[in-house]
C-alpha cells in the first residue's frame, strides 16, 4: 500500500500549494523586496537622486548664492566656448589612454609574472599582495609618498638617486612633467586591478593547454602569445572598459599631486568639473561639465561593448570544453 499512500499525500500537497499560490506569490514578492530594499534605498539616495539633481543643475546658473535660476543651454554653450576646454579635453584623452595602457598592460605583465612564471603559489601571492598594498593605502598617503619621492629639492629621493648616479642637479619633476607623473602614479596603483583579474584567469586555464603547447614546441613567449592572451581576451576587455570608465571620472590623485597645474597642464574634465563647482562655486557650470562627462562615458561604454561583442562575452565559459 505504500506507493498509494505516498501518492495521495503528494496530491494533497499539490492542492494545498494551488490554494497558497496567490498568497505565496505576494509573500515572495514582499520577501524579495525586503531583501533588496536596503540596497535600493542606498542607490536611490546616493546615486539616482544626485544624478537627477546634477542633470537639473546643469541647466541652471546656480552659484554660491545657491539660487535656481534656469538658463537653458547656456552652460553647455559656455563649455564649447571655454578657451581651456581644448587643453582639458586633450589632457583627459592622454590621461585616460595612457593610464589605461599602463593599467592593463602592466597588470597583465604582473599577472604573467606572478601566476605563470612563478609556479610557487605562495610566492606569487606574496608579490601580488605587495602590489596591492598601494590600493589598501588611503589615496592621500599614496599621493604624499609620490610627492616626497619627487620632491624638487636636493633632498627628494629621485633627485638623490639621479645625483648619485648621473651627478644631476635637482629637478622639479612634478612641475616639469605633470602629465607623466599623474599617468605613472595612477598606472602603478591601477595595475593591481588588472593583475588580480588576469592572474585569476591565468590560474583557471587548464594545465593541459600549457603542457600541450610545451610539447608542441612553444617557448614561454609563444605560450603567452598563443595560449594566455587568447584565453584572456574577455578579462582583458572587461578590465579595459572598467578602467577607461573609472579613469574618466577619477581625479583624486591628480587633485592631490598637481591639482591640475601648473595652470591647466594636467587638468582633466572630471577635475575641471570639480574645480568649477567646489573652487569657483559655479555649481551650474560644474554640473554641466559633469553631464558632458557622463555622456562621454556612456558613449564609450556602448562603443566598446559593440566593438568587443558584449553578447558573446556573456555566453557560457570560454575555457576548455
Amino acid at each position, binding site marked *: 500500500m505504500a506507493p498509494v499512500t505516498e501518492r495521495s499525500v503528494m496530491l494533497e500537497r499539490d492542492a494545498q500549494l494551488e490554494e497558497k499560490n496567490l498568497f505565496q506569490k505576494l509573500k515572495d514578492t514582499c520577501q524579495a523586496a525586503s531583501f533588496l530594499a536596503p540596497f535600493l534605498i542606498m542607490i536611490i539616495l546616493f546615486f539616482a537622486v544626485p544624478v537627477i539633481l546634477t542633470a537639473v543643475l546643469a541647466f541652471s546658473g546656480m552659484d554660491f548664492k545657491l539660487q535656481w535660476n534656469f538658463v537653458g543651454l547656456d552652460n553647455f554653450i559656455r563649455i564649447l566656448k571655454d578657451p581651456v576646454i581644448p587643453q582639458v579635453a586633450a589632457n583627459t584623452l592622454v590621461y585616460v589612454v595612457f593610464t589605461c595602457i599602463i593599467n592593463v598592460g602592466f597588470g597583465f605583465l604582473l599577472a604573467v609574472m606572478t601566476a605563470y612564471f612563478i609556479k610557487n603559489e605562495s610566492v606569487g601571492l606574496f608579490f601580488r599582495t605587495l602590489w596591492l598594498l598601494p590600493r589598501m593605502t588611503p589615496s592621500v598617503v599614496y599621493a604624499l609618498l609620490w610627492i616626497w619621492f619627487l620632491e624638487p629639492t636636493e633632498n627628494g629621493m629621485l633627485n638623490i638617486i639621479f645625483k648619485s648616479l648621473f651627478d644631476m642637479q635637482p629637478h622639479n619633476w612634478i612641475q616639469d612633467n605633470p602629465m607623466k607623473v599623474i599617468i605613472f602614479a595612477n598606472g602603478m596603483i591601477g595595475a593591481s586591478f588588472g593583475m588580480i583579474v588576469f592572474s585569476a584567469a591565468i590560474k583557471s586555464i*587548464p594545465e*593541459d*593547454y600549457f*603542457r*600541450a*603547447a*610545451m*610539447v*608542441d*614546441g*612553444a*617557448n614561454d613567449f*609563444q605560450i603567452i602569445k*598563443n*595560449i594566455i592572451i*587568447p*584565453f584572456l*581576451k574577455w578579462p582583458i576587455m572587461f578590465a579595459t572598459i572598467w578602467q577607461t570608465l573609472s579613469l574618466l571620472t577619477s581625479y583624486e590623485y591628480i587633485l592631490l599631486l598637481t591639482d591640475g597645474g601648473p595652470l591647466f597642464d594636467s587638468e582633466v574634465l572630471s577635475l575641471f568639473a570639480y574645480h568649477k563647482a567646489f573652487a569657483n562655486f559655479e555649481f551650474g557650470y560644474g554640473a554641466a561639465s559633469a553631464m558632458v562627462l557622463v555622456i562621454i562615458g556612456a558613449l564609450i561604454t556602448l562603443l566598446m561593448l559593440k566593438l568587443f561583442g558584449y553578447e558573446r562575452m556573456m555566453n557560457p565559459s*570560454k*575555457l*576548455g*570544453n
Partner: protein
Amino acid sequence: MKVIFENVTKKFGNFTAVDNLNVKFKDGEFVALLGPSGCGKTTTLLMIAGIYKPSSGKIMFDDKVMNDVLPKNRNIGMCFQSYALYPHMTVFENIAFPLKLKKMSKDEIKKRVMQAANKVEIGHLLDRKPGQLSGGQQQRVSLARALVKEPQIMLLDEPLSNLDARLRINMRAEIKKLQKDLGINMVLVTHDQTEALTMADRIAIMNNGKLQDFDIPEELYENPKNLFIANFIGNPPMNFIDVELVEEEGKYFVKNEVIKLELPESSRERFDFSSCSKQLVLGIRPEDLTITESKCNTLQAEIYVVEPLGRDKLVNVVIGERKYKIIAPPKFNADTGDKVNISLNFAKIHLFDKTSEGSIRRNRV
C-alpha cells in the same frame, strides 16, 4: 627508439609520486602504464615528455640522457584526456601549430597537415573550431596534432576516457593500428585495464608510485606476481579466499572455517610450499570456477543473484559470509537461495602469501 628509466624517483614535497622506477621500453613498442588514480602513471608520462624533471635517476632515449632536455627538443607527440585543443584556433591551425613553431614553410605545413588529417580521417573538418566538433572528432584532431610532427614517441594520457563506450572500442583498435603502421613508440596511460590489455604490447602496472610488474598482457593475466595485480587485472575481478595451508598425510589442503580443499599433486610443481607461510590467499578467476553436481573436493555455495551477460551468465554466490563471482554457460538457470557445488580448475588457481602479498608460484626456468 628505446626509452630507459634508471632508478627514477619523482617527489612533490614530501610525497613520492614515482618511487625508484627501473624499466626499459623497446623500440617501436606500445606500452601501457596501468594503475589506479594517484599511482604515478601520469607523472611517469610527464617525465617522458619533459614537463616534469625526475628528482633523481636518469631517463634515457636510446643512449642519450634526457633529464635536462626541454619538451620541445624531445620530438614527442602527446594527446591529453581533455584533448587540450586550442579553442581559438581552427582544426587546421591546431594541427599546424607545432609546425608553425618550427618555422616551416607554408606549403610544407599545408602538405603535412593534410597528410596527418587524412590519416585520422578528419580532412573535411579543417575549417571548424574545436567547439564545433564531437568528442570523437576532437580526439582525432588531437591525434593529428601529435602525429604531424612525425614524433619518435607518442604519449597518450587517458585518451579514450572522455568518449562514449562504443566509440572507445573503435578508437582502441584505430590507435593500435596507427601505432603498428607508423612503427613508433607509444606510451598509453590508463586506469582502464581493458584498454591496456587490448592495446598494449606490454603493460607496466603501477601502484603507489611503485612498478608492480612489466610484462605482456597474457602473462599479467595468467600469472599475476602479486595480489594487487591479480585484483586489478581481469573483469569481472578474480575471487579471493583467505585460507590456511595444512599438510595431512603427505597431501596439501587449503582450508578455513567453511571450506576445505585438497590441492592436487601437480600443484607442488607450480607452488613452493616448503618456504611459504601458512596463511595464504587463494585466488581464482570467475571463468575457472564451474558449477557441478559432484560434491567431491568442491565448494558449497548458495546462489545470490544471476546476471545474464548475453554471451554467458555471471553467477554471484555466497560461501560463508563472502560473495564470489562465477562465469556460467548461458543456459545455466538458478534461483536465489539455491544450493550449488562449485569445482575449481586447480591448474588455474593462484596462491599468495597473505603478509607479503606476493605469489608463491615457483619461478619458471
